[in-house]
């Protein structure tokens, strides 16, 4: 099966277009071309602010990377996009996040639906303590509509899309914990793909992996971007440069510079950005 193809109809691939070129250090996309539209988002853990009046648009079907020093708020921003902060009672926020024009905090939005549309892969591979097959089928079973045959098909498709099928097709009933770290991370991606999300949030997905596994994950990210929007948080400048189309540089909870990746890495507008990407700033 072709890993690029989604069974059923497949989604149309719309290349993002930069409608309005840079306004200061930040590029902007038209609301039609953007998947996420974040407007004046401030977020605080108790009394300590993590994000301050952050405004940016994430283009559809591209890879967008968030970079910045530790504690700059990039992971916080990522977790705000699928409302994982809801779990923490101390978190408060202001501003608006729209997904395809719809406010994700609107009362009519069910948070489990939102999270199904906005999948997430974490820093530590977190397969559940079940078999490889059951891991991939987990989200499908939650939806609870599928026949066994259809489920088998989707599991195979998702594992193929995550470039894992050939490694695990003979051991689907084995524990997911018997896989290597890199395989586990690809399994988690397959598990997320199986519920057919529109957006995939990747929170330093390769930081716990060896270089070869990292390359495989990066290939995977590149291969997926035709079908869905990917947002990548990474500490690794080369990784951001290799896989992303656009890069946002955050510092102390504020958006500093947001530009096409090539521009940001070769010709940053601000000295702060240059200092960071060249490693002259801690």
């Amino acid at each position: 099966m072709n890993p690029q193809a989604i069974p059923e109809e497949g989604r149309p691939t719309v290349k993002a277009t930069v409608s309005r070129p840079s306004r200061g250090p930040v590029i902007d996309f038209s609301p039609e071309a953007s998947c996420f539209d974040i407007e004046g988002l401030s977020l605080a853990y108790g009394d300590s602010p993590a994000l301050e009046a952050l405004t940016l648009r994430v283009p559809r079907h591209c890879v967008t990377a968030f970079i910045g020093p530790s504690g700059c708020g990039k992971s916080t921003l990522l977790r705000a996009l699928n409302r994982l902060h809801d779990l923490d009672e101390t978190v408060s926020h202001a501003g608006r996040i729209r997904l395809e024009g719809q406010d994700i905090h609107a009362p009519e939005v069910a948070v489990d639906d939102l999270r199904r549309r906005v999948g997430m892969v974490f820093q530590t591979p977190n397969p559940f303590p079940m078999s490889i097959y059951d891991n991939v089928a987990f989200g499908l079973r939650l939806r609870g509509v599928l026949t066994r045959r259809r489920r088998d098909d989707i599991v195979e498709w998702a594992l193929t899309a995550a470039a894992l099928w050939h490694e695990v097709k003979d051991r689907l009933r084995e524990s997911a914990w018997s896989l290597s770290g890199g395989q586990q991370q690809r399994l988690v991606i397959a598990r997320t793909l199986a519920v057919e999300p529109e957006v995939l949030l990747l929170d330093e997905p390769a930081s716990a992996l060896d270089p070869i596994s990292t390359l495989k994950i990066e290939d995977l990210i590149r291969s997926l971007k035709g079908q869905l929007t990917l947002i990548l948080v990474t500490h690794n400048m080369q990784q951001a440069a290799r896989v992303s189309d656009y890069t946002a540089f955050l510092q102390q909870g504020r958006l500093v510079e947001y530009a096409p990746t090539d521009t940001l890495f070769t010709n940053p507008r601000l000295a702060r950005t240059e200092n960071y990407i060249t490693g002259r700033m801690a």
Partner: protein
Amino acid sequence: MSRLWARRRAAGEGAGAWLAAGSVALSLLLLGSLLTLLAVRGLGHFWPASVALVELDDGRQLAGWTVRELPLPESEGRERLYFTGNRDRDGDVWEWLPVARIAAQTYPPELVVLERRRWGTFIGRLVAVEPGPETPGWESETAAPGDTAWARLAARLAALERLREARETLERETIRPLVRRLEADPEDTAARRALAAASERVAHLRAAMDETTLVLESVDGRRFRQPLVEVLAATRPNALSPLGKLVAWGRGLWRFLSEGPRAANSAGGVWPAIFGTVLMVLLMSLLVTPFGVLAAFYLNEVAHQGRLTRLVRIAVRNLAGVPSIVYGVFGLGVFVYGIGGTLDDWFFEDRLPSPTFGTGGLLWASLTLALLTLPVVIVATEEGLARIPAHQREGALALGATRLEMLSRVVLPMAVPAMLTGVILAVARAAGEVAPLMLVGVAKLAPQIPVDGDFPFLHLDRKFMHLGYHVYDSAFHGDDVQAAMPLVFATALLLVLVILVLNLTAIFLRHHVRTRHAALSRQ
């Protein structure tokens, strides 16, 4: 200077390691000596001791085995304690003798030790076996001494055992169903006739068992007659080979494990107590696990983590420090008198004033112990829940799972080993607990185990026996504590073993759960 300091630090570290190792060694030593004491004193009791024929300097003779030897309190020399049996003849089973007065001590092989239903042990000689007048093929052979009589006794004992079994089978398989039929329909004449016939057969068997009589002689020459039906076991310890002794030891041990107690718990076996202990602990585990796990889930997953939750948590932890007798009083007041009394008023009015659930019983004892062990299960489960990494939960939520789906499909399966750890700790705590049980349902003697063939098969209202209480009772409340002492040790050892087996079961279960993922590949 710094070198000196380094050397001192190294010395301190060495001393620390020695101290730690020493405390471990000391605990192991204490534990080992306790178990050895229990094993030696308890298991040694079943070893057939050689019977000494003691001749005193004044010509008096007695037979028995040495129990211990101590220095005389006020003069030179030592004295020995003999177990001489024959309570029905001598009035006592113990005899202290100064060693200096013993003229001779021999071990004649013909000495017989009989275990009797009444009056305990007999030690002496077997003169003859007299079959009853109605038994065909047996002539009275009063004159035949020694081996022939012994062979007859062995044969008769085996026959007696068969008769006993036949009678029990008849009672269990014929009489009891007939009685039940008659209870349902008192007009059933066929059943009535069959019952009469069966009862007659039982009476006949009983008469046949009563017929044989033994002629016994104590070593000082007193003769008397002993109905064979009272005799439970007979040995000639001095004539046994080491292998024979081992067989007799095994048989004694088996009887201890498989039979009910006799002689006010100072002799006989502990089977009802083993059964009662295990059943109660299993029931307790079944009751405490769901409650404890739900409470832990609420505290850890659902409740707002504020001051109130912290307070509740501290309170739960401190409940573990409440003396167990207080739980017993609570159980008596709330479960037995409160709930049990109400149940009696509502459903068992016809049996009042004799209570059904309004008195201590298996259910109330299990509930009380479940309450007692609840903190242990809650704390262990909560710790297990806290150990589950946040990214597992978030992973489930990020796939669109609701909170309930996340808890039931990811968190609960991962918390099972911790829950089982809680159950293991609860079992260890509950199985050794005696004080609260005295108030809520344990019995000194309940030879009927709470499970039988009568509906509803498991009788939660019945009183039951318990190994721990059995130890207490036979050690402090018997007529002859000295005689019961070895059984106390054996029972205590057994209790430890029962707890060990229960724990090993739970540990095996936990191991199974933990390795299920490795085992998935074998499917």
